[in-house]
């Protein structure tokens, strides 16, 4: 039992470290990677749980990537798991930035580094579009018009109208709460 725990902790640390070391382009990029490792390969969490975690990470303060790794760790191995995942996620940027900070102008102006990063930009875009397609399919399966419409509506509100993420999340939760409230009232009045 003890060694089994240790193995789990070690793989939590390793995967989070690995993902974090390759997270270019912001918090959302970790979601497709988390899905690959924790949902598809290890089957420790399911797709829906990952989306719940993504939603919670957005609605709470702090970096989305760190919050998700904390929640995945917590779900898999409790508070210890959360701490281990968090350390794994924070360590790569901490180490890399510590090294770079001594000569950051040289790094910034390096042509090889900037061309590698330019290529990765397109790769980041592809991984995140791949994720959006799959997640959208999951939601369409529900055949609930409100949930289906909420995807383009949230997109429009955030991308074109620049409405704050938290406001969008609160508004959507409120609508869903209202829908379930009226549904249950209708059900009750029929009885």
């Amino acid at each position: 039992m003890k060694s089994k725990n240790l193995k789990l902790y070690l793989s939590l640390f390793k995967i989070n470290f690995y993902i974090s070391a390759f997270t270019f382009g912001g918090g959302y990029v970790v979601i497709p990677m988390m899905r690959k490792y924790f949902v598809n390969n290890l089957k420790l969490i399911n797709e829906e749980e990952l989306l719940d975690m993504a939603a919670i990470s957005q609605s709470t303060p702090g970096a989305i990537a760190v919050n998700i790794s904390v929640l995945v760790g917590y779900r898999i191995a409790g508070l210890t798991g959360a701490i281990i995942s968090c350390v794994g996620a924070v360590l790569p940027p901490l180490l890399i930035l510590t090294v770079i900070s001594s000569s950051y102008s040289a790094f910034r102006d390096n042509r090889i580094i900037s061309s590698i990063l330019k290529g990765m930009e397109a790769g980041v875009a592809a991984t995140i579009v791949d994720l959006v397609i799959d997640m959208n399919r999951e939601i369409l399966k529900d055949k609930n018009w409100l949930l289906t419409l909420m995807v383009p509506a949230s997109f429009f509100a955030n991308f074109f109208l620049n409405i704050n993420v938290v406001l969008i999340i609160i508004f959507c939760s409120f609508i869903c709460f209202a829908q379930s409230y009226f549904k249950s009232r209708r059900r009750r009045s029929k009885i």
Partner: protein
Amino acid sequence: MIKTIIVLFISFLKIGLFSIGGGYATIPLIQEQVVDFHHWLTLQEFTDIITISQMTPGPLAVNTSTFVGIRIAGILGAMLATLGCILSGFILSILLYKFFNKYKDTDSIFNILKGLRSSSVGLIASSASTILLIAFFGSSSINVSGANLNITAIAIFIVSLFILRKFKMNPIFVMVLTGIAGMIFYL
């Protein structure tokens, strides 16, 4: 020295607590604390840090706190600034997760979670679009002219998306491949 580290920690605790939504939304907040209020960095240094944070892996806020921490108080400063930055997210996301798990069998919480999932996909799509604009046009604004369209980036994007969908390839492997492609085509 100890006083500086405490001030650093509290300052990043504030940044962490008020940076909801992540990413670029946090930049003005960090700037206010680090440049305008404490004068730890000049505006030029801050701009450099943002550029480097975008170039290096890891969340923007974590990268910035490491950078500022190390300049002010060495490695210990970097560690405490980062700790301050992630602490409130760590605690609050676990509390919210526990709350949802406890009540997810009730109808209303179950429905709220479903709604959260949908809006979350919309928000991820929004973030994806920003990344697409930056990769294809080199700018995140929507008013882009076709003149500075980056054909190479579009080609790399299409090939990557194809191998991701068709062969279910590991995203990290895709990142390595696109990095190599970037070195070949852009250098």
